[in-house]
């Protein structure tokens, strides 16, 4: 803002001579305004006072800015993430990390500053769908939407900042309720007869990695290859991928992995969200009950999805073929049944033959969870936890330990031990399935770009251009005055002369 004292202009002949009322023009953004102010001090004093006032104001502003900035940083630091059920619009979970979520941010992307190395990583991943019921043997299409413009979140090498469509089989990897518990979680899932694709080779990897895999209710020879029920094969925007590559971040982390880094982002789907229909077929031990019931997947979609699973499912099928299929399906929505399908991992318990069908209820047509993780830590993981038990039981995602799903009482208690448990007749039990997506997003230092614009005009001149001048006085006026005066005087003189002469002549004639 520029304040100019009108009388103080540098116009020639218009110097400031006295003190008193002065008009001040404010060149504000709106329009120039003039104000009359009292100027009672000498310029130096006024300038000093103004400088002091400006300095004070500047200091106050700076202090305020600094305080605000510091506060903002404080708020941002450590905010891990917040998962929000996008459909419902309510936060499903909030990581309890050190940091508190900044209120204003809401669901939006958050920025977190990593401690040693300040890293700002902001991204938002939204899990959308499936929008329809998922039944065993059918493909599942899950869409991960990553907010564009943020730090690239490499869910997989194929991920784009836009939309990553994961299409195919869901592989559920079971984690033991608690890492502490050495024994694998009970197993479960009913083998799905369909089995189909379910088995994706890749899946094998995954499973193998995942501790749960140990699962298997019935000890299958494979043991480890639990049959994954469902495999998420990411088909990023079209580029689908079949089974998840072993290295794929999507592959469930091994038990150890379980200890998800604090940075992990966990998308948890409450038990209530899924309804599993399991075929009652008790899979007797044997064989592999393990087979994954999980089936979710499989081939259904035919898409890639199917491809995947093979491995497991394959086995599954193979092995399991057995169990699974039991036709009868039992729906265990909340109750626990679930079974899941997941990957076959069944744990311990025998798997009940139930072949689960996963039905994901949708909110307003779309089931989606939006997570806004903001963490500097790197391998971030997205875990999808399917808890058969009522939602309430679902564990908070924040916990490192896999969500502790407590099996419903009915559920079998999984024998912690590896020893195969006998499948419950009913085969219903609650279980937690995790689909883990590891996001190996290397921490990146915050990049702040300052665009310094060079002034095209090196030095800006003061004020206006003084490109006018007073024209010289027109001489016409003077000439007119002089001429008029001459005429007037001349006529007056001539008149006087003539009068005198006439009177002289007149007197003479009379005399004559």
């Amino acid at each position: 803002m520029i304040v100019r004292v009108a009388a103080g202009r540098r116009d020639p002949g218009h110097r400031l001579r006295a003190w008193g009322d002065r008009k001040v023009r404010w060149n504000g953004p709106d329009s120039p305004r003039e104000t009359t102010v009292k100027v009672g001090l000498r310029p130096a004093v006024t300038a000093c006072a103004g400088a002091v006032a400006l300095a004070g104001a500047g200091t106050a502003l700076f202090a305020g800015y600094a305080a605000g900035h510091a506060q903002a940083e404080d708020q941002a630091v450590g905010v891990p993430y917040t998962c929000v059920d996008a459909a419902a619009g309510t936060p499903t979970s909030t990581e309890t990390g050190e940091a508190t979520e900044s209120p204003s941010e809401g669901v939006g992307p958050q920025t977190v500053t990593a401690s040693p190395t300040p890293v700002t990583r902001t991204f938002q991943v939204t899990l959308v769908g499936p929008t329809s019921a998922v039944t065993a043997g059918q493909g599942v299409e899950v869409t991960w939407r990553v907010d564009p413009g943020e730090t690239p979140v490499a869910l997989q090498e194929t991920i784009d900042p836009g939309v990553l469509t994961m299409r195919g089989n869901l592989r559920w990897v079971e984690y033991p309720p608690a890492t502490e518990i050495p024994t694998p979680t009970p197993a479960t899932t009913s083998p799905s007869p369909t089995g189909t694709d379910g088995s994706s080779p890749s899946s094998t990897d995954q499973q193998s990695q995942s501790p749960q895999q140990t699962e298997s209710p019935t000890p299958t020879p494979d043991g480890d290859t639990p049959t994954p029920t469902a495999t998420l094969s990411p088909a990023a925007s079209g580029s689908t991928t079949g089974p998840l590559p072993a290295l794929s971040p999507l592959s469930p982390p091994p038990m150890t992995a379980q200890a998800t880094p604090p940075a992990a982002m966990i998308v948890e789907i409450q038990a209530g969200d899924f309804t599993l229909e399991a075929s009652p077929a008790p899979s007797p031990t044997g064989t592999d009950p393990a087979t994954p019931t999980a089936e979710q997947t499989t081939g259904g979609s035919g898409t890639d999805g199917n491809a995947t699973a093979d491995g497991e499912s394959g086995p599954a099928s193979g092995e399991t073929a057995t169990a699974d299929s039991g036709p009868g399906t039992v729906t265990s929505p909340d109750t626990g049944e679930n079974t899941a399908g997941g990957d076959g991992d069944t744990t311990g318990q025998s798997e009940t033959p139930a072949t689960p069908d996963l039905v994901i209820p949708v909110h307003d047509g779309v089931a989606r969870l939006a997570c806004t993780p903001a963490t500097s830590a790197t391998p971030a993981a997205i875990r999808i936890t399917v808890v058969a038990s009522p939602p309430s039981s679902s564990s908070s995602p924040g916990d490192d330990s896999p969500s502790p799903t407590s099996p419903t009482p009915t559920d079998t208690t999984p024998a912690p031990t590896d020893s195969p448990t006998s499948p419950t007749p009913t085969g219903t039990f609650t279980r937690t399935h995790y689909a883990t997506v590891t996001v190996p997003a290397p921490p990146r230092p915050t990049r702040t770009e300052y665009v310094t614009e060079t002034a095209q005009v090196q030095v800006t001149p003061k004020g206006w251009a003084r490109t006018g001048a007073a024209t010289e006085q027109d001489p016409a006026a003077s000439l007119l005055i002089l001429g008029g005066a001459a005429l007037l005087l001349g006529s007056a003189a001539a008149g006087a002369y003539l009068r005198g002469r006439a009177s002289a002549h007149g007197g003479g004639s009379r005399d004559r």
Partner: protein
Amino acid sequence: MTAEPRGHGRILAAALAIAALIGVGAITAGLVLLLDPGAPEVIGPAGDTSAADPTDIADTADPGSGADRASAEAAPLTLPKSPPKRVRIPKIKVDAPVRSLGLDRDGWLEVPPLNRPNLTGWYRLGPTPGQLGPAVIVGHVNSKAGPAVFARLHTLTKGDTVEVQREDGRVAVFRVDEVQRVDKHAFPTTRVYGNLPHAGLRLITCGGTFDPKSGTYNDNIIVYATLTATH
């Protein structure tokens, strides 16, 4: 005999009376001209007033208004640095030499000498005409002797052309985007001297009414132009 001189005397008296009246009239007229110069001449676009147009700032920040923006969308046409030699404005029949101007000791823009009313000045601390940014050329609207080079600058309208011949032999052709009359106290410094995404030209002269007290005009006439061609 006596009738004749009487007739002559009357005629002479009448002539003297008329002369006296003329003299009185001349004196009166002279006094009127001397004491009351009449309504001051207003130089500049009628409807355009001063300034403090909020867009002044926006123009530069967002570069340019109107044609400025339009021209900014495409890759800006620019020329390398080369001082101007002459400025030609066909519409108002201006063909004037250009000299280099700087700042005076107080930081004000220098102006060409008043004794050379046809001389214009280019502000050398800014871009040269054709370079990226606002090139500034100023000229007097009048001098003590009468109208000067930019006496009719205010009559320019959007679309008129201004040609600047440069020392490198190239001629930068500018198209007038806007003619603005601004109060000197609200001079749009940012808009005139602010960065541009294209090659611009600002022609500045005085306008408005002459303030005998300050010895200057109250307003400035500013012509905003954009480089559209070179040859």
